[in-house]
C-alpha cells in the first residue's frame, strides 16, 4: 500500500494560519524600519533580495522543489498575474513553514515585512480585479440534490438517483461544483426515463383503483422439538416455514403506496428491554444465501411482550422494491414475486462469536427474539382518492370543465413554478403549452398528455441546473431561496421560502436568520449533514476497504450455518454502516447543540449505539439506536479523529496506514492541500499490504521511505502527522500494544482457538510491544499518541481548524471552489467566528448571511 507516495504542498487557493501570526508580528513589532515601500520599488529593493537569499536555492532557476519557483515572479501584483503563487508564498511565510527549519532563518522582522508587502499588494490586486470574469454558477443538480428535489416536488419518494450515472467524487472535495457536474447524452436520457416513471406514479387514471390484499398468519405453537417457533425471528436467520424465512408476495399493483400491518411483540430475556425489527422487501432474500437485492420497508423497536401483541403499520412505494422475476420452467414462465422478510437486528457486537456451530443454541435464547403473528399487505392505499400527489398537480378547478385550455395553462404554471424554483416566464409557459398541444392528439387524455408534458419540464435546463439568468427570468430572491434550501436541505425550496422570495424580503437579515434556523431544525437538514460530512471527511473510502476478517473476525457478520457458512451476511447493517452513521450523527449533534467547532478535535461525548460501543469497548450502551453518550478520558474516543469511519478508511484493512491518516488530518482537519506523489517517484515496497499475517514496524518502513531522495522532501513534513494514530488499529480500535517485529499472526481456527473468545485471547498474548506513536510534527513539538495530538491541535492550531471548517461550509454552500479572491471575505468570517467562540450553528448562520453567500458571483449577461 505504499505504492502511493505523497508529496506536500500547502493548499493553493487560500491562506492558512495567517491571522495569529499577523496579529502577533504585525502589531507587536510594528517598527518603522520594517516597512517596505509598496509596489515595484519595494520589490526590487527588499522583496527580491529576500527571495534571493532565502528561497531561490530550492525554488529558483536551478531547482523547483514542490514544483514551485519564485525567480520568475515579477513584482507587479496589480498586473493580476500569478496571484495564486503570491498567495502561496505569503502563506508559507506567515505559517513559518518556509524557509525549512534546517535552513538559515531570516529575522522575524524581515519576514513579517515581506509578508506585509505581499499582503498589501494582494489585497489591492483583488480589489481592482472586480472586473475579471466571474466563476460559472450554472451547474446541474447533483444526484443527491436531484433525488431530494424529485421527492419534494412530488411528495413521495422513488429511488431515482440510482438509475443515473454516478456523480464523480474526489477525496476531500465537494462534488457540487460546476467543474464536476458535467452532463452527457446518456444522462439526459435517464432523466427522461426517471421523469416518466415519477409522473406515471404521480398522476393516476380516473376511476377507483383495484386494491390488492394479502395476509399471512403464523402459528405460535410449532413443534416442541424445534429450537424456535414459526412466529419467532432469532438473530441468526431462520428455518423454513417460519416468519423469519420470509413470506412471498404474489401480486401487487404496478404503482402506488402500500401499507403493511404486522402484529408483533418481543421475547426479552433478562437484561433486555427492546429488540429492533426490520422489514425488508425485494428479490432472492435469504439469510444464508441469495443476492439480497432489497429495499427496507421500515423498522420498529419492539418493547411489548407476547401477552401484549401490538399492531405496527408501515407505508412505502411498491415501485421501489426489486422484483424477483419468475423462472422459465418446462411448464412455462412462473409468476414474478417479491419477498417480504422480517429481520431481528439485535446486535451486541458479538454475533459472530457463536458461529462455531448451529447447535450452539443456549446463546440464541439469551438474545432477544422478535415475534410476528401476522402480516397484512394492501396496495394501493391513500387517505383520499385520487391521492394527494395527484391533486397537487391536477387540482380541482372550475376551469377544468369551463375552459380546458386555461386549466392546462394553470396546471403548467403551478408545476413549473415549483420545478423551476421560480415562476415561469410567459414565454416559457407558452412553449410548454405548445408542447402539450402537440402531444395531445397522440396521447388522448388530459392525464396522459400531462404526464408526458411535465416529463419534458423535468429535462429542461431550468429544472436540471442551478442557474442565474438575467433579463428578469430569475430573480435574486428566488436564487437565494434555492441556495438556502440546497445548502441546508440538499433539496428545492419549500412553499414558505418561495412565498418569501416572491414578496422580495428574503434578504432582510432578520427574516433570513429565522429561515436558516427553521431549515436547520427541519429533519431534511440531516441530508445536508450526511452529504457534507461524507465529502468533507472523505468517508467514502471506509466503505471500500476490505477488512481482514482473520484479524478482525467480529467486524463483518458471517452466516452461521448452511452452504454459505462463514461468508459475509449480505443484508444486515454492519459495524461499518454504524461507523458512517456515527460520524454524520456526531456532526449533526454539533450543529443541533451549537457546539464549538473544535469539538471535532475533542469532545466529552460520542454518538454511539450498542454494537459500535461494544466494538470500541465502551460499556453501558444498550440498543441499536444512536444517542449521545458521555465519554471519559479512558474511552479515548472524543472528537472525530478516532471515529472508525476515518481510521478504517485510512488503513489497509489489516494494518493502520500512517500516511493516509496523515493526509486525512492535513486535508480534512487542517485544510492543507496534500499533493499526490510525482509520477517518477518509485513505489515503496508493499510490505504492510501483503503481510497481513506478519507484524512489521511501520516506523522502519517510513524511515526507509524517507531515505530515498525524492520522497524525503515531502514525507518529512507528512509522515509525523500519521504516527500518533498508530495507537488505533485498522478496525478503528484503541490498541496501544502490538506484536513484536516478525511475529507470525495465526488465523482464526476452530480447532485451535475453539471460538472467537479463544482467538482473542491468543491474539492478546502476542501483543507484547508498546506501539511507537511518537513523532515530532513539523514546526511543532514531539507528540506521543492521539491524546497529545489533540492537545497540540487545540492549543496551537485552533484557528486553522476554524478557518478550514469555515471554508468547507462556504465552498459547499455556494457550490464553487474558493480562490485567492475570496481570501479577505473568509478572513472576516473567521474573525467573526473567533469572536463568538466559534460554534457550529453560529458559523452556518454567518455563512448564510455573508456576502459570499448572498452574492456568490454576480453574473451579468455581456451586452
Amino acid at each position, binding site marked *: *500500500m505504499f*505504492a*502511493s507516495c505523497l508529496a506536500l504542498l500547502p493548499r493553493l487557493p487560500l491562506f492558512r494560519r495567517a491571522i495569529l501570526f499577523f496579529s502577533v508580528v504585525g502589531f507587536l513589532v510594528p517598527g518603522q524600519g520594517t516597512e517596505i515601500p509598496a509596489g515595484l520599488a519595494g520589490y526590487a529593493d527588499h522583496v527580491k533580495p529576500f527571495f534571493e537569499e532565502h528561497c531561490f536555492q530550492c525554488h529558483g532557476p536551478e531547482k523547483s522543489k514542490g514544483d514551485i519557483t519564485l525567480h520568475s515572479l515579477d513584482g507587479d501584483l496589480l498586473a493580476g498575474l500569478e496571484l495564486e503563487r503570491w498567495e502561496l508564498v505569503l502563506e508559507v511565510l506567515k505559517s513559518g513553514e518556509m524557509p525549512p527549519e534546517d535552513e538559515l532563518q531570516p529575522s522575524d522582522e524581515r519576514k513579517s515585512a515581506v509578508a506585509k508587502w505581499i499582503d498589501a499588494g494582494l489585497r489591492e490586486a483583488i480589489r481592482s480585479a472586480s472586473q475579471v*470574469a*466571474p466563476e*460559472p*454558477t*450554472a451547474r*446541474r443538480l447533483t444526484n443527491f440534490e436531484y433525488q431530494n428535489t424529485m421527492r419534494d416536488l412530488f411528495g413521495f419518494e422513488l429511488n431515482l438517483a440510482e438509475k443515473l*450515472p*454516478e456523480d464523480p*467524487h*474526489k477525496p476531500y472535495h465537494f462534488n457540487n461544483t460546476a467543474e*464536476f*457536474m*458535467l452532463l*452527457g*447524452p*446518456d*444522462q*439526459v*436520457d435517464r432523466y*427522461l*426515463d426517471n421523469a416518466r416513471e415519477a409522473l406515471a406514479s404521480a398522476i393516476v*387514471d380516473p376511476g377507483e383503483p383495484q386494491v390488492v390484499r394479502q395476509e399471512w398468519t403464523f402459528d405460535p405453537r410449532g413443534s416442541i422439538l424445534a429450537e424456535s417457533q414459526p412466529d419467532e425471528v432469532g438473530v441468526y436467520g431462520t428455518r423454513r416455514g417460519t416468519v423469519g424465512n420470509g413470506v412471498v408476495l404474489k401480486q401487487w399493483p404496478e404503482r402506488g403506496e402500500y401499507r403493511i400491518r404486522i402484529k408483533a411483540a418481543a421475547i426479552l430475556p433478562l437484561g433486555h428491554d427492546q429488540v429492533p425489527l426490520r422489514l425488508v422487501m425485494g428479490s432472492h432474500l435469504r439469510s444464508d444465501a441469495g*443476492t439480497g437485492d432489497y429495499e427496507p420497508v421500515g423498522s420498529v423497536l419492539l418493547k411489548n411482550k407476547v401477552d401484549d401483541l401490538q399492531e405496527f403499520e408501515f407505508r412505502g412505494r411498491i415501485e421501489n422494491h426489486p422484483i424477483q422475476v419468475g423462472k*422459465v420452467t418446462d411448464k412455462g414462465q412462473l409468476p414474478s414475486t417479491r419477498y417480504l422478510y422480517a429481520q431481528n437486528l439485535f446486535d451486541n457486537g458479538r454475533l459472530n462469536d457463536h458461529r462455531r456451530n448451529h447447535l450452539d443454541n443456549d446463546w440464541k435464547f439469551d438474545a432477544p427474539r422478535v415475534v410476528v403473528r401476522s402480516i397484512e399487505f394492501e396496495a394501493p392505499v391513500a387517505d383520499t382518492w385520487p391521492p394527494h400527489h395527484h391533486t397537487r398537480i391536477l387540482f380541482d378547478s372550475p376551469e377544468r370543465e369551463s375552459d380546458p385550455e386555461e386549466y392546462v395553462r394553470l396546471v403548467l404554471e403551478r408545476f413549473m413554478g415549483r420545478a423551476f424554483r421560480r415562476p415561469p416566464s410567459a414565454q*416559457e409557459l407558452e*412553449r*410548454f403549452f405548445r*408542447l402539450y398541444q*402537440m*402531444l395531445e392528439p*397522440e396521447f388522448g387524455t388530459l392525464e*396522459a398528455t400531462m404526464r*408526458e408534458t411535465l416529463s*419534458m419540464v423535468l*429535462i*429542461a*435546463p431550468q429544472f*436540471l*441546473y442551478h*442557474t*442565474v*439568468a*438575467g433579463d428578469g*427570468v430569475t430573480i435574486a430572491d428566488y436564487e437565494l431561496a434555492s441556495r438556502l434550501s440546497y445548502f441546508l436541505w440538499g433539496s428545492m425550496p419549500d412553499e414558505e421560502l418561495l412565498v418569501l422570495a416572491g414578496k422580495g424580503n428574503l434578504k432582510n437579515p432578520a427574516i433570513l436568520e429565522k429561515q436558516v434556523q427553521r431549515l436547520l431544525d427541519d429533519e431534511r437538514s440531516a441530508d445536508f449533514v450526511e452529504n457534507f460530512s461524507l465529502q468533507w471527511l472523505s468517508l467514502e473510502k471506509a466503505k*471500500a476497504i*476490505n477488512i481482514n476478517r482473520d484479524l478482525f473476525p467480529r467486524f463483518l457478520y458471517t452466516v452461521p450455518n448452511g452452504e454459505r457458512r462463514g461468508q459475509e451476511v449480505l443484508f444486515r447493517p454492519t459495524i461499518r454502516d454504524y461507523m458512517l452513521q456515527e460520524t454524520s450523527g456526531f456532526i449533526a449533534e454539533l450543529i443541533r447543540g451549537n457546539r464549538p467547532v473544535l469539538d471535532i478535535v475533542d469532545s466529552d461525548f460520542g454518538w454511539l449505539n450498542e454494537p459500535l460501543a461494544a466494538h470500541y469497548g465502551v460499556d453501558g450502551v444498550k440498543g441499536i439506536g444512536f444517542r449521545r453518550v458521555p465519554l471519559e478520558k479512558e474511552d479515548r474516543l472524543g472528537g472525530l479523529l478516532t471515529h472508525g469511519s476515518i481510521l478504517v478508511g485510512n488503513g489497509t484493512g489489516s494494518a493502520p496506514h500512517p500516511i493516509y491518516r496523515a493526509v486525512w488530518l492535513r486535508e480534512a482537519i487542517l485544510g492543507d492541500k496534500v499533493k*499526490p*506523489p510525482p*509520477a517518477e517517484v518509485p*513505489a515503496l515496497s*508493499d510490505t504492510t*499490504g*501483503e503481510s*497481513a499475517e506478519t507484524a512489521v514496524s511501520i516506523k522502519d518502513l517510513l524511515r526507509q521511505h524517507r531515505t530515498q531522495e525524492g520522497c524525503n522532501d515531502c514525507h518529512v513534513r507528512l509522515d509525523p502527522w500519521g504516527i500518533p494514530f498508530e495507537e488505533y488499529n485498522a478496525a478503528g480500535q484503541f490498541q496501544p500494544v502490538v506484536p513484536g517485529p516478525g511475529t507470525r499472526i495465526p488465523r482464526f481456527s476452530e480447532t485451535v482457538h475453539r471460538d472467537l473468545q479463544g482467538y482473542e485471547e491468543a491474539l492478546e498474548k502476542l501483543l507484547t510491544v508498546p506501539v511507537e506513536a511518537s513523532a515530532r510534527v513539523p514546526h511543532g513539538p514531539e507528540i506521543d499518541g492521539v491524546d497529545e495530538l489533540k492537545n497540540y491541535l487545540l492549543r496551537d492550531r485552533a484557528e486553522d481548524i476554524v478557518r478550514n471548517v469555515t471554508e468547507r461550509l462556504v465552498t459547499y454552500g455556494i457550490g464553487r471552489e474558493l480562490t485567492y479572491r475570496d481570501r479577505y471575505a473568509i478572513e472576516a468570517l473567521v474573525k467573526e467566528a473567533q469572536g463568538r467562540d466559534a460554534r457550529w450553528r453560529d458559523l452556518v448562520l454567518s455563512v448564510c448571511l455573508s456576502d459570499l453567500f448572498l452574492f456568490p458571483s454576480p*453574473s451579468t*449577461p*455581456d451586452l
Partner: protein
Amino acid sequence: MKMKSWHLNRRDVLRGGGLALGLPFLNGMSWAKGLAGEGRPKRLVVSYIAYGIYDPKTADGKAHEWSWYPRHDNGPITLNRASAPFEPVQDSLTYLRGLDHAGGYGLGGHSCGDVFATGADMTGPEKTNNISVDQLAAKVNGHKTRYPSLVLGSEGGTGSYGMSKTLSHAGPGRPIPALKRPQEIFNRLFQPYANKTVGDVRSELKREASVLDLMMENYRSLHGKLGAEDREKMDEYLESVRALEQRVERTSRWTHEPLPEIDSEGLNLDATYEDPTEYIRCMYDLLYLALQTDSTRFATFMTESEHSTGNLVGNFANKLFGYTGATHDIAHKRPEEASGLWEKWRAEQHSYFLQRLRDTPEGEGNMLDSTVVLWGSAHPHGSHSTRDYPIQVAGGNRLGFRHGHLHAFDESRKVPLSNLFVSMLNAVDTPVEEFADSTGELTEILG
C-alpha cells in the same frame, strides 16, 4: 388501463423486449456492407480483468508455469499452464510487458481501471476521465453500423470516480453505463422495436424529434439570458440534447434496414453470476454476435471491476473452485494454486471469444483477422502498483498487426501504453497522431 403505443418510450424502442419484426431477414453482413459502401469491417475490442495477474519471480528468470505471462522476457511465445487455453489462437497473440498510463500513477491500484481504455490523467489537470479508445473509433466510424458501440460489464452501470464499472467514456464526465444482463443486451441488439411495427416506431420517432426541437428552443431562449461563463457551461446540455436528436435521426434511418437474423442456438440468456463460466461466455457470445452481424464494430467488456467485493462477481473464484475468500484476496495472498487456476479460467473464457472470431470465415480469412482485441488489467499484481500493466493483443492480422512475441519494454525502451492505442485506432480507420500521452505508434507489433 388500455395499453397505447405511447406507453413505450423511445428507450423501450431502443431496448426492445418481445418479438422481433416480421420483416424478411437478410444476412447481417450483406446489408451492412451495402450501407457502408466499403470493404470488410475493421473492429476493435477492449476487455478487462481486475486485481492484476499472477506473475511470480522465479530463480531462473523464466516465467512461472502458472504465470499470466507465458514467458518472462522478450522472445517468441511458448505457452505455459496458465496461458495454455490460448493454444488454438497462439499465432494471433502478442504479450506486452512494461506499458502503462502515466495518467494512472496518481490514482492507486484499485482506481486505475478507470483509465485503462482512456489514458486520462484524472489526478492532474483533467480531473475527470476522458474519451476512451473505443469511443473515439466509434465517433469516426460508428455511423456505419446500427449501434456505434457496445459497452458491456459484468457489474453494469458506470461506477464512480476511482471505482469505474465501465471501460467506455464518451468524453469528460460522460461515462457510458455498461450493460450486464444478457437478456437485455440481446433485446437491445436484436429486437430493438419490441412488439411494434416499423410504422409505429417511425411515427413515434417523428414525434420525439418535434418534441426535442421544442426543448432546443426552450434551451436557446434561456441560454441567451445567461452570463458568458454560464453559457459555456450549458453547452454540454445543448450537446446532450443534440446527441438525442441525432440518435432519433439515426434510429429512424436504420428502421429502413432489416434486422439481422440471429442464430441463438445454445445461447443461455438466463445465465447469472451463480455460474460464472456460463455468464461470462454468454456475454462473450453476445459480443461475438454483435460483431458477427455487424451491428457494431467497437466494443468494451469489463469482465470484473476493481471493486467487485461488494457483489457476487467478486466471488467468482469461490464459485468456480471453492477458493475461500473473495477473488480480490487471491491478488493479495497469491496462493500458487488458486492464482494459477484463476488465471487459467480467465484465459479459457477470453480464448473462447477469440476462437469464435477465428472460427468465423470472413472473405479470405476469418473475423479475428480484422478484429484487434486488447485484453489486460491496469493493476499488475497484488501490491496496488499502478505500473506495468499486463497486456495481451490478439487478432487484427489483416489490419497490420504482427504476432507471436512477447515484447518487454523496460526502463530504456519504455513508451506509453497509449502508443498501442494510436496504432489500434489507425488500424481501424480512425486516423490519429496522438491519444492521451502517446509519443508515437507501437511499431514493435506492426507488420
